[in-house]
């Protein structure tokens, strides 16, 4: 009887955690604190709660001693033994297969595509250039991360893609090029996306004049249903022919959009927009959080990733703003440069920030729909950048 009780006590997490107090114990406690902070940010501050909350819970589950729910070592080998994953793996190992095989980010892109209205982009295709300019931070952060000498080129590319401000894209690139950095990069990407209303406005005000901020843009033309149907097919074909590695993202994004605009697949479109994306978001968040084990997360590299990610975000914002400024000059003052910051993906938060800052200077100026063009162009741009990194001969 006593032996059974002792046996039970020895198997408790409390015993495992405090039986030998060392640096490992301290790291685990720190991870609990970080998970708690993320839960607070998600629930208390509403910072990207749909993803930060599952990530935080995944982080908590993976760090509970004795739970054995996730084994990162099963996935960082050159050749993954899927039989071993299914046989020996825990619940989160099984869920992580969806990340490792690149399934979740693509499915999420189907949902995003179904939710996205590309009308502003079709109406004003020049916006694509702003979306391209806003990828500057991706390559800048890559350059900086590589220059530090701490990261391999593949890791630097995964860090750079944080500047694309697109969670699924960052996850897809990182799971392929630098799986051990997945949790740090995903958390950095989603945290900065949540902080866009704080990060972007200072740059927007710094790089534009008051006169530019008050520019009113011409009304967008109407877009026919045929145009809306042809657009996703066209983008898939063009991007697929030039950057085939971007197809898992672009192809799914455009497929989701086609479901929405074609008018004959309402049920599929609604499923993609709701149940499908919600279910996969839960799986993705939990499994990404699971990679944040104390040993894997609490490294000097994580701090550098946080800084490089912030730099990527800032430079992407600057790149979008400068591109919009140049286009404003070239069009004779017809483009409000504030829509440039929306070129970082983060749909539709970045576009809302453009609208909000614009209205601070002219309350009757409505920039939201104009900013949605660069915003969705940024999604395509970051997918192209991701495709480039994935196809690069490292």
């Amino acid at each position: 009887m006593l032996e059974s009780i002792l046996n039970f006590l020895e198997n408790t997490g409390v015993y495992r955690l405090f039986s030998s107090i060392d640096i490992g114990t301290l790291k685990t406690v720190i991870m609990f604190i970080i998970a708690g902070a993320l839960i607070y940010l998600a629930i208390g501050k509403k910072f990207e709660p749909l993803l930060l909350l599952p990530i935080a819970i995944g982080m908590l589950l993976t760090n509970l001693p004795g739970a054995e729910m996730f084994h990162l070592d099963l996935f960082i080998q050159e050749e993954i033994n899927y039989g071993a994953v299914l046989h020996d793996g825990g619940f989160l190992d099984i869920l992580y297969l969806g990340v490792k095989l690149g399934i979740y980010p693509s499915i999420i892109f189907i949902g995003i595509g179904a939710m996205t209205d590309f009308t502003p982009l079709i109406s004003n295709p020049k916006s694509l250039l702003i979306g391209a300019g806003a990828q500057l931070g991706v390559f800048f952060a890559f350059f900086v991360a590589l220059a530090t000498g701490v990261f391999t080129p593949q890791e630097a590319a995964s860090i750079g893609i944080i500047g694309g401000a697109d969670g699924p894209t960052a996850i897809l690139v990182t799971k392929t090029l630098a799986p051990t950095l997945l949790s740090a990069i995903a958390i950095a990407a989603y945290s900065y996306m949540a902080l866009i209303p704080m990060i972007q406005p200072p740059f927007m005000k710094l790089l534009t004049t008051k006169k530019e901020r008050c520019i009113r843009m011409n009304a967008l033309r109407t877009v026919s249903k045929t145009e809306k149907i042809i657009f996703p097919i066209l983008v898939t074909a063009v991007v697929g022919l030039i950057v085939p590695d971007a197809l898992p993202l672009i192809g799914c994004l455009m497929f989701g959009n086609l479901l929405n605009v074609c008018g004959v697949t309402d049920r599929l479109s609604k499923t993609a927009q709701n149940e499908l994306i919600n279910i996969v978001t839960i799986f993705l968040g939990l499994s990404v959080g699971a990679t944040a084990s104390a040993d894997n997360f609490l490294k000097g590299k994580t701090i550098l990733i946080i800084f490089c990610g912030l730099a990527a975000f800032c430079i992407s914002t600057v790149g979008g703003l400068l591109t919009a400024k140049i286009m404003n000059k070239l069009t004779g003052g017809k483009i409000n440069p504030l829509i440039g910051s929306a070129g970082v993906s983060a749909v539709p938060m970045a576009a809302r920030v453009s609208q909000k800052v614009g209205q601070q200077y002219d309350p009757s100026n409505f920039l939201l729909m104009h900013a949605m063009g660069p915003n969705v162009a940024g999604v395509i741009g970051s997918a192209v950048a991701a495709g480039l990194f994935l196809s690069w001969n490292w």
Partner: protein
Amino acid sequence: MDFAIRTLFLSANGMNLTERLLYGGRVFIIGIATVFAVLAILWGVISIFKIFMYDIPQKKARKKAEEELSAHISDGQSKNTDAPVSAAPAAVQTPAGDSGEVLAAVIAAAIAAYTAESGEAVPEGSTLPFRVVSYRRVKGANGWSGANDSQSF
């Protein structure tokens, strides 16, 4: 100290600082150029597809509307010969641009239909009983009013 020096000059990938900067610079330039190129191609393709999917059908629709309008006016003229009218709406902005022309045509059609029904005649030397010189939107009707007040049609 030794670690810091090694990190600075020799990375995890075995490249020295110069090699890392050159390699990073190469990826930077090729990367941003590729993204711009792909999106610029997309811009071009969408612009071409706009010509076929929007501009040409729009032109045809406008032509058809004008023809129908003329036919409608002719009918109205044959019915009424009295009471010449000078129905020029209040003018503030000058119509210009594609969407302005369409809107002007719509306004013209609406006025023509109304005047034809009410029996107003066409002034001598004009194909229409009036001319839309310019028009102005009434402010404050709804949220759209603030969207583009300064736009010239």
